[in-house]
């Protein structure tokens, strides 16, 4: 089996963000970087699939500047066989359709049986790239999986629905699946695998940037004003209760 896992390197969400000079994105300096959390589940599921079928080759792909290779090494240490780094220093600016095009460009000649991706990225969070890749490749896609089973080309997944219920969906390969948190428990790389990962193939390729065109523009990028701005309420309890209820009505959608 030929399997592709698309991952993204994102900043750790605990970081203190600043706006960049262009006012279009967050400033990339002084941030700690890690694998997009949703992608960890994708990598883990691919590795488990390989453990199950035995004869499978896992390619992990990531788009971005040189620093994303650190994150790719983690995917290799978790069990991917090879890495493809699509070198693009402006990846952070690209729209989902551009990212999807770059991935589809790479994948279109490779005949992957299954493509695993995270259902969205923790920074941009557009939840578009996965499905767009499938559309560009002309293969089916199923999003938000929290369950996965494979048997002789038959794929059975569980989609997570609002409210916690799940939908059971079956299909066959080739297929693209976007993974939701809780699909599995991503493994911690063992030391022998970390050592082996250092020797695995990690190719850097240049993307074909022609034909990409922006379809949207960021007109503003800012911090939301803290709703309420940290109001301190002190005084007589009945009054405080009234004030609080009023604030909840005003500032949240919680009280009708």
């Amino acid at each position, binding site marked *: 089996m030929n399997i592709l896992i698309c991952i993204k390197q994102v900043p750790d969400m605990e970081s203190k963000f600043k706006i960049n000079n262009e006012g279009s994105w967050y400033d990339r300096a002084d941030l700690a970087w890690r694998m997009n959390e949703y992608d960890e589940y994708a990598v883990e599921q691919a590795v488990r699939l390989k453990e199950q079928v035995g004869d499978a080759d896992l390619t992990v792909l990531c788009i971005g500047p040189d620093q994303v290779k650190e994150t790719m090494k983690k995917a290799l240490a978790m069990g991917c066989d090879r890495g493809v780094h699509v070198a693009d220093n402006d990846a952070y600016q690209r729209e989902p359709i551009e990212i999807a095009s770059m991935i589809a460009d790479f994948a279109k000649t490779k005949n992957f049986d299954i493509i695993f991706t995270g259902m969205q990225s923790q920074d941009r*969070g557009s939840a578009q790239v996965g*499905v767009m890749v499938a559309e560009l490749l002309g293969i*089916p896609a199923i999003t938000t999986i929290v369950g996965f089973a494979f048997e002789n080309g038959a794929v059975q997944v569980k*989609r997570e629905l609002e409210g916690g*219920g799940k*939908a059971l*969906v079956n299909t066959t390969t080739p297929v693209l699946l976007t993974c939701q948190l809780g699909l599995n428990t991503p493994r911690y790389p063992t030391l022998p695998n970390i050592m082996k990962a250092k020797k695995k193939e990690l190719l850097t390729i240049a993307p074909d940037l022609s034909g990409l065109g922006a379809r949207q523009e*960021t*007109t503003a990028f800012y911090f939301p004003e803290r709703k309420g701005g940290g109001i301190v309420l002190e005084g007589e309890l009945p009054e405080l209760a009234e004030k609080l209820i009023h604030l909840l009505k005003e500032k*949240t959608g919680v009280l009708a």
Partner: protein
Amino acid sequence: MKTLLVAEFREGKLRVKYSQLLAFAKELPTEASMFLVGSTSDLPQFDGTLYLADVAKYGEYNPTVHKQLLLDVIAKEQPDRIVFHHSSYGWDLAPRIAVALKAAQISEVMALADGEPVVPVCNAKLRRKIKSQTARTVLTLQAGAFGMEEDPVGTPTVVPIDTEACKKVECKGYEAARIEGVDLTKSEIIVSAGRGVGKPENIAMVQALAKALGGEYGGSRPVVDAGWVEHDRQVGTTGRTVTPKLYVACGISGAIQHLAGMKKSDFIVAINTDKDAPIGEVADVFVVADLKQFLPILTEKLQSR
């Protein structure tokens, strides 16, 4: 400007949140029609055109077929905007439309600022205002970001639609959500008890407030360890990490391990006698009061509204 709204049908019923789509449409000067793979027995209530495909024929989740049905309607209606819910149905279908139309897709719109959509970035720590540069735009709306004051009324003009497209996936059915144990990560309103409640008997106050607000109750580590609150209701690094719309921390000091589990909540209210408690650093509102006295008063006022 024409807007096509995409409503959802699940487990035999129309999803009532379609009113949010209508509310959004109202914010723009626009002519709105609606698309639904559903049933004539459960129609949305609005005055306008409803393009209806039979869910019995085409299934509730069937992306390739729904996509074709929708593209056919788009070809006919020529909307400038196609609006979905940002949901397991919406984010699955919308990108397919965006690719087919070569249109910009703007996901999880949470507000309109000067007519332009605003979306959250980086776990909602930041905001981005986006301008589409394509003639047609696909949008998905954040759950609950837009709402109507009253229930929608009206009678749609139903236009039936069909397609020959084949399905590529098979939806076999549904699995109900786990009932044993509460999953606070899915709760929109959480009221949590901390050490400040003092005694196990006082947990009832916290539960009552949670109920009055229509939410769930949780607890910080010390009260769970003490056995006053069940383990699956623990909020914190070694319990659940929650992101509700409203988090009320009662008698919780805000030790790092707890903060990590709830600071991404949309709106945080802290009730504590200690003005300097670290919870104050993340609280939108800090009520300096003894929860044992304040909670009953607050609950009563909520219940009598």
